[in-house]
């Protein structure tokens, strides 16, 4: 196979693989696992440049240059991220990453405060809030969250204590590398523990996506939810908060 001995062939292959990779994450929406929507136009520009590069480089396939071991080595390096993407099939940052980064249970920035201007819906007596909104309210307008009924979604992280777990969402600014884990402590009442849906310790695993409905209370400056209902939900299409 003469083509396999042509270094130009590997140049074309690298560009083709990355073009297909970028197109696939754009079409499936999987790019949201890695980067914020803000990067969408940059990825599109990258795709267009790769497309031009591919067309022009393909026209030069007849320019034969003997492949050496460096070309093969470079090709394998480029292949590594694509292979790991196909094998691991990543879904969203796990709670393990939250522990390594340190879960923020009190966090306030101008950016977080902006979330208070988003429209807040209700579900029965519960206000549907994100973890980001709850943390912002607990610092800026505690009276609007303390002793109020809330419904909030997130990932489960179970620690050592039996009757508590932490509900986690990652807050993304640009990409998963900068994701900051936001968390709220959830506690369920003693007397209800025997009801089947409240035997959370046995039923829920780390990484499970759940919706918690209950009363929010501010204790020692930190917000805590006393759960009344916990239900498993499908992971949202957008796993992160922005």
């Amino acid at each position, binding site marked *: 196979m003469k083509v396999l001995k042509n270094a130009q062939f590997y*140049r074309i292959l690298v560009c083709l693989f990355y073009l297909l990779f970028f197109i696939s994450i754009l079409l499936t929406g999987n790019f949201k696992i890695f980067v914020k929507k803000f990067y969408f136009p940059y990825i599109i520009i990258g795709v267009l*440049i790769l497309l031009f590069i591919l067309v*022009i480089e393909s026209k030069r396939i007849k320019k034969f240059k003997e492949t050496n*071991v460096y070309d093969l080595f470079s090709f394998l390096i480029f292949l590594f991220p694509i292979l790991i993407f196909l094998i691991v099939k990543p879904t969203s*940052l796990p709670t393990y990453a939250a*522990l390594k980064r340190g879960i923020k249970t*009190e966090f306030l920035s101008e950016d977080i405060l902006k979330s208070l201007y988003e429209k807040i819906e209700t579900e029965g007596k519960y206000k549907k809030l994100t973890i980001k909104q709850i943390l912002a309210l607990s610092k800026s307008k505690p009276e609007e969250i303390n002793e109020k009924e809330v419904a909030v979604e997130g990932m489960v992280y179970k620690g050592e204590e039996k009757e508590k777990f932490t509900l986690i969402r990652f807050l993304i600014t640009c990409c998963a590398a900068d994701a900051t884990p936001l968390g709220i402590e959830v506690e369920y009442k003693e007397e209800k523990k025997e009801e089947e849906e409240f035997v959370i310790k046995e039923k829920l695993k780390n990484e499970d996506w759940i919706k918690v409905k209950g009363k929010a209370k501010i204790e020692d400056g930190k917000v805590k939810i006393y759960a009344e209902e916990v239900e498993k939900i499908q992971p949202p299409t957008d796993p992160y908060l922005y």
Partner: protein
Amino acid sequence: MGNRFKKNSKEERIKKFLISIGVLFSFIIFNLWYSGKLSELNKIVQNPKLQAFTIVLLAILIEGFSFILIGSLISGTIEVLIPEEKFKKLFSQNRFVSAITGSFLGFLFPVCSCGEIPVSRRLIKKGIPTSGGISYLLATAIINPITLFSTYLAFSSGKIVFGRFLIAFICSVFVGILISPENKEEILKEYEEEIHDENLKKIEKIFIHSTNDFLIMGKYLIIGATIASLFSTFISRDVFISIAKNRIFSILSMQILSIILSLCSYADAFVASSFTYLPPISKIIFMISGPMMSISLIIVYFSAFKAKFVKKLLISLFFTILILGIIGSFVIGG
């Protein structure tokens, strides 16, 4: 003759390395298959550590590749469309003036996440004084409208934005002047980028230059991003925050954390603002050091510039940032 021998022995080493990897990989697969545990692979790939590593690696690469491609296109366009003489007339040849101009070029070519490397290499190659090319390389990810605005959003403080801008400016101009040689050949790594086919159209030449830049720097970015993702996956950030006990340690630990995390300069301010208990100067140093010398950038520097220069750049940069941080802590407190 000596060089040829050296090259051949290096080739042999790479060959042996590739064969060893292949053998090891085949052995693992065979072993799993033989013991009937091939289906366990599914469990391995679901491992949270592997998931976290893969997501951070691909996040850095998706961001980095987009910017390297844009940077490579700008670089190819400069190479093909602007003649060297014209380019030299556009920029002052005085190394002091050039270092100052270079640090503001981020407003003209606002690329980040490695995109500035092909552009700065091309600027130096085309005849901008080396001091200007270096200060552009260091400053552009910080001194540009998007980064400064996102810093304001994260901190809601004009003082922090000004502090970040000022330290980035002083640092890039100072290091640019300090380590810039007269001769650009002492900086630029030579790689095959001459296009011998004269019949090519200009647009084709631009994209062929872009491909060269992308393939050379992209490879190094993958290596850098892999190291950064390993650090991000296995090292706890709290370790760095817990050692930030006094003025110098707090600056030093944030400097090292920013190097290993390799965050995008558009986003690092939000991460810095979450380090609630640290003094402002340590947060500013975190936002200076990362965009100038994060681990993924360092590896890509080696693709574009000579190793001797990169080592000099990194040492002078590290100590300049540290000293500016200490001076800053006395000026603004912390």
